[in-house]
């Protein structure tokens, strides 16, 4: 097995750190299979939930004999059943995602998938561009994180971002509720709010992770330039003055602030990742601070 770079999400040292983390849901979601996450189901489990009268067919082991001694009634003890958690990773694969941003997103997504899979949760990867692309749902085994990484690595950037269409398609095909973490730069011509609203109204627990290159925070140059839109291929000629540069800086900050305000107002997870910072910091620090991981 080849030696992996330190920033490789499949680096064994890093994976070892990830095994101490788990995905934390702010809501209670009910999965199909038993796992380690709380659910609304009552059944066998560790945490007591309630009693119910015994009915023929119940396992004798579930009868609370102490209660029978006090009440002279056969009662069956119920516990909260622990099920799996669905973690949906909506990964932006449009052309607006530069190589740095794509790598960053890929690394974060792989790490999160590994955390989920390591705790018997489900991880689903849904790439999107001008629509929803082919998804990938690995088996519940942490070794499948490698497949997630490869899947995202193989995903070709496609077209302009149509975030609303992608979210609408996602909400239409996905049945199981869970956490939806959108990893994108959110530079969609049609805006991002409508897509996030669709996800929220679909009773998903939505998380926002904004990714940006550090050079995106500033105007690329001063003077007359031809701006080439990587996503649409359009060009426009512009003389960038100090005023315009300042206005752009202000617009960029307002763009992130808008996402942050939206997340705060709806009690959503929000994180802003810069590609010049190590992604481990995002996983091990930011996400833990923001209580996506614990």
């Amino acid at each position: 097995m080849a030696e992996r770079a330190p920033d490789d999400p499949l680096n064994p040292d890093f994976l070892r750190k990830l095994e101490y983390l788990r995905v934390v849901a702010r809501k209670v979601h009910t999965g199909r299979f038993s796992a380690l996450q709380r659910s609304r189901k009552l059944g066998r489990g560790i945490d007591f939930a309630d009693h119910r009268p015994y009915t023929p067919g119940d396992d004798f082991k579930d009868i609370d004999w102490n209660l029978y001694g006090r009440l002279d009634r056969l009662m069956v003890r119920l516990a909260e059943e622990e099920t799996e958690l669905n973690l949906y990773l909506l990964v932006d694969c449009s052309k607006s995602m530069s190589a740095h941003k794509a790598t960053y997103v890929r690394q974060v997504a792989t790490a999160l998938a590994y955390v989920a899979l390591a705790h018997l949760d489900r991880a689903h990867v849904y790439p999107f561009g001008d629509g929803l692309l082919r998804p990938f749902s690995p088996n519940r085994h942490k070794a499948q994180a490698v497949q997630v990484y490869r899947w995202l690595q193989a995903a070709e950037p496609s077209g302009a971002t149509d975030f609303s269409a992608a979210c609408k398609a996602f909400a239409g095909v996905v049945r199981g509720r869970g956490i939806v973490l959108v990893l994108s730069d959110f530079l969609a011509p049609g805006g991002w709010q409508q897509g996030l609203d669709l996800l929220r109204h679909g009773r998903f627990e939505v998380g926002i992770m904004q990714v940006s290159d550090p050079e995106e925070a500033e105007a690329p140059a001063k003077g007359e330039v031809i701006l080439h839109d990587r996503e649409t291929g359009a060009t426009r000629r512009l003389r960038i003055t100090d005023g315009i540069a300042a206005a752009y800086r202000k617009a960029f900050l307002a763009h992130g602030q808008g996402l942050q305000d939206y997340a705060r107002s709806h009690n959503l997870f929000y994180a802003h990742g810069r590609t010049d910072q190590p992604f481990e910091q995002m996983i091990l620090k930011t996400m833990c601070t923001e209580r996506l991981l614990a």
Partner: protein
Amino acid sequence: MSWLQGWELFGWSARQVALAGGIGVALLILWFLFRPRPPRVEVSSHVLWDQVAPKNRNPLLKELLMLLLQILMVLGIALALGDPHWSPPPGDVEQEAVQAPLDRLHVVDLSLSMGARSGDGTRLDAVADALVDDVDGLPAEVRVGLIGAGPFAEILAPIASDRSRLRLALRTAQVGGVGSDLRAALALAAAMPSLRRELAHMEVWTDDPDAGELVAAWSEDTGIPALVRAPFAPAGSLAITAFDLGAARGIPAEEEALVRIANPTPWPAIARLALETEDARLGEAEVRLAPGEEIERRYRFLPLPGTGVEAVIREVEFRVSGPEDAELRTLPDALAADDRAYAWVEPVRPVTVWLVSDGNRYLERVLAVLPGVQLRRISPAEYRGGGGRGASNADVVFFDGFVPLEKRDGPLPPRAVLLSPPPSRSPVPVLGGADKPVVTDWDLEHPLFRGLVLRDLEVERSMVLDPQEGDVRLIGTTTGALVVGRQRGDRRLVVWGFDLGASDLPLRLAFPQTIVNTVLWMRDSRPMEPALGGRHLMSDPYWLQGEGGVVVTDLRQAAYARDSGDALALGRASWQVSVGDGPTPYAFPRPGLFAVEGPAGRVDLGVNLFTLDESRLASLPAASTERVPEPSPQPKPDPEGRTPWLVLAVGAFVLGIVEFGMYTR
């Protein structure tokens, strides 16, 4: 660029400024074409940039507009650097002055029509007032001149800055003559040596309806701008176009006057036409003329001693319709010169009648009462005794019962009437005699009996005549003729076959008329001398004879002459005309009765217009409406005020700001 030649902007000539501007513009265009392209920068999306800088829909148009602004800015800077002042060089001052002429030449029509009434004066007065006003308003450097255009063109005031001569010429100018030779006047103007053609301007003051085309053609040929001025209103005038006397002269010496009147206006007219002498009115009648109509009127009157006769139109009213028929108004006759026609009547030459008779009281009484007849009575014996000499010069000779013998008494006078001649001497063969012959026929077409009734003429006894070939049977009976007329060349003969006393003819009303007709028929066979005095048309030159001088006297116009002190004397207006060796042409100044006295004697004559050329007052030339530009003082640079360079610099600065604003948007 010829319009820039000679113009100088302080420091730089116009050519230099144009060169600098052209180079600047060329550099700008080259820069525009080969300017460095901006770097191409990839961004993730235009989303944020669209929020910062809205898209420009047509960037190329913006660039071209900016280029245009840059070019204008460069031109403004280049011109401003030249510190320009509008100070054309001396050569261009004259070119500028073409629009403000410094020589103004006026041609004034002096034909008779300019004497038509217009307002309180005449058309010529109106022209003089308008022209003096124009001249008084001109700057002192403008020179003016005046040319009169009557039958002959003459310089009334040469071109000069002094206006007094022009004013004097205008105030003393008089109309006269038929027609205005505008062509000659214009040619005279163009040939004036002191005229500066490139600075000249011509104004023609006339009422000739055709002047517009003539002046326009002249202006095109000479290159001198010319205007037509007609500062008066259309007017009406009736005109006498013919006045003829003597058309029906006869015994009793009755004159006939034919007057022809024309109405050249577009309005119907009513007037009174009178025929009068200086002392008496011979006839008067009302005449009505439709627009464009020409009518004739005839007047008969008794013969006059040598005097002038005038046909006069008075109380003329033109019925002019307004925009609606209800607005009918009348106009008077504006031109007096064509309202009178003149003729000089010579004294009527008396008719000499001889009566060779032993006594015929009928004939004697009739001939004695006829005016203008000089009757000489002579007996046949006296005629035979030599008293008949000179009978051939008489207008008519009556032989009563007597026929002269040719061998003894000489030939029969050429105009003779034989009353009951002896049958043997009758020039018309006699067939015999007849008692109480019945008149069966008479020639009422012959001048002797025209208009008379002789149907029941009773004759006691008469000879029956046999008319020869060429003879006219005037009164006939069943067997022959009672009266025969004969005409051979200018010889005329009437033979009566009966004695007047043997018929009832002398008792009839037709008798005097028969005698009058006989005298007239006889007299008219003589070659007539012109009975009228000389008549002359104004449009023709009158040739004066007599070396040294001729005095022309207007027999109808009185003249006031200052004799001495404050005394005024009234007399005929007369003037002296110099005459050369040969016949000298002379133009009468107006229609009228004139006497021309020279070494060859005196000639009285009536001078008339007899043309409608001066009477067409209703149509005027299309007067030019534009005004001659007044010379304006030459613009001078204002040393203290804003100079053009400052304006140009500010303009360039503003253009630069606008361009910069577009560039940074």
